[in-house]
């Protein structure tokens, strides 16, 4: 019994890393501008689509570099054409703007690249790895794609942590996140910081899109992965990078374990069909967290003067 559970747990954690990646993009932009960027999912899809189609015509490394350039250009366009004109507007207005960007990107991706299912081939090993064969009969099966994704994610997060904690840009970013006007008054150029944050979020979207694309193939339902990032964000807190990571791991592991452990119990006790737990478990978990700790596990405590 322990073997399969452990295997499910590891598989869940590795999937969770991918949720974390998507959630991370949200957190970055929310921290810097207080905007809930609804377009993050669309950016993941757009990046994956661009990478897949470019990969058909050139070596994959070149395609990744070119897609990164496209995402940075996209960040520039979003800052220049949309955000710059909405400085000091209310959060809801900025949110609506990102909603518009999301649908534009969804459609524009099709216009540019077509709407079939494409695949990304990074030339990674696909044969499953078996661990600890001496302890468990048959060993623990691990998907190498997911393992590589986890490593890539860890490297990315470590890099971001250094970037935001140590550099002057990081301090500027935290300043902008706290108070736009005050940041401007000490000479921090808001548009420049936003450009950097959106570019970084674009790169994070590219990595997420790449990994999801390898796993599932690139198709328009990929944008829906972003919806899984919502419970992750509620769990981890909208403003916490470690929260996004831990939240993703909890959701990833939780939903897989629930499917495997809770499903059979529901079948036995209540004679239910028992499937689909993976689809709702994360949201129920998020609702419970909302009731107990609305700021999330790692979010800043919400203190409002009344």
């Amino acid at each position, binding site marked *: 019994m322990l073997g399969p559970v452990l295997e499910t747990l590891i598989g869940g954690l590795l999937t969770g890393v991918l949720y974390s990646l998507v959630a991370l993009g949200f957190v970055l932009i929310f921290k810097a501008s207080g905007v809930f960027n609804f377009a993050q999912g669309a950016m993941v899809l757009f990046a994956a689509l661009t990478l897949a189609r470019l990969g058909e015509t050139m070596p994959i490394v070149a395609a990744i570099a070119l897609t990164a350039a496209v995402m940075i250009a996209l960040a520039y366009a979003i800052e220049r054409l949309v955000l710059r004109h909405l400085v000091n507007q209310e959060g809801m207005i900025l949110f609506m703007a990102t909603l518009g960007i999301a649908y534009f990107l969804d459609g524009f991706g099709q216009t540019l690249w077509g709407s079939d299912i494409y695949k990304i081939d990074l030339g990674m090993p696909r044969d499953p790895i078996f661990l600890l064969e001496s302890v468990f009969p048959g060993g623990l099966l691990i998907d190498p794609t997911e393992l590589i994704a986890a490593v890539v994610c860890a490297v990315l997060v470590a890099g971001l942590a250094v970037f935001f904690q140590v550099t002057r840009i990081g301090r500027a970013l*935290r*300043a902008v996140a706290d*108070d736009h*006007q005050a940041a401007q*008054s*000490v000479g921090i*150029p*808001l548009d420049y910081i936003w450009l950097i944050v959106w570019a970084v979020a674009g790169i994070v979207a590219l990595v997420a899109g790449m990994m999801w694309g390898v796993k599932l193939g690139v198709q328009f339902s990929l944008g829906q992965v972003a919806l899984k990032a919502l419970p992750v964000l509620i769990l981890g807190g909208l403003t916490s990078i470690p929260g996004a990571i831990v939240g993703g791991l909890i959701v990833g592991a939780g939903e897989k374990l629930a499917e495997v452990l809770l499903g059979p119990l529901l079948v036995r006790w209540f004679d239910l069909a028992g499937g689909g737990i993976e689809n709702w478990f994360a949201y129920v978990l998020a609702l419970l967290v909302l009731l107990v700790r609305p700021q999330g596990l790692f979010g*800043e405590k919400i203190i409002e003067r009344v």
Partner: protein
Amino acid sequence: MRAPGDSGVGLDAALLSVDNVSLSFGGVAALTDVSFDIRKGEVRAIIGPNGAGKTSLLNVVNGFYRPQKGRITFKGEARPRMRPYEAARSGIARTFQNVALFRGMTALDNIMAGRSLKMRRGLFWQVLRIGPALTEEVAHRRKVEDIIDFLEIAHIRRIPVGRLPYGLQKRVELGRALAMEPDLLLLDEPMAGMNLEEKEDMSRYILDVKNEFGTTIALIEHDMGVVMDLSDRVVVLDYGRKIADGTPDEVRSDQKVIDAYLGVRH
């Protein structure tokens, strides 16, 4: 009248001049044809009843608002408007009516943020924290520690400012502005909500900033005693128009000012 050895603006010359500035929000006039200047080295008070347009005027000077008409000349350079980034870069720092600090950061980090524009080393060195970037960071830290000593806030430097009492937050905010080593310091009600002792402390800091650093100061303040004590010249606004301009004594005895504050018998 230019002081010898001064490349920019001499004593008694205007460091900043605002000419015929008008600002309105969707038809509501906030400022109408306002002109005034600030001379190098003086404390210039801006007073007026609530809603007179004092904060709007500061927001025009440091670029948050774009005036529909008029011109702003700072250090001899005329612009139809400032941008916040330009204003900061050219030497204008400010504090806010309702303290605007980076609440999640410590007092020290807040004041360090005021050094943003002074730091020049590239990203590569910053990440590694070696070589020139380290030397630079240390030099800035020293400067910031000087400011912390000056404002007597050494004991709170590691505390996130959101947890500090209001009076100390205002002091940290002043420290952040001073860290920019500004030529012109805009103070929007630096003593609002303070008790008498805190007001006296703040007045002392403002005078020290003026005398020791030679910083020019524009000050919005409601406490008339403070205004009369600190300022060299006073400009009075009412309903977005300038109604008086002169020394504290001149302004105090001006009939239009008295009317604006006390109302006119109809």
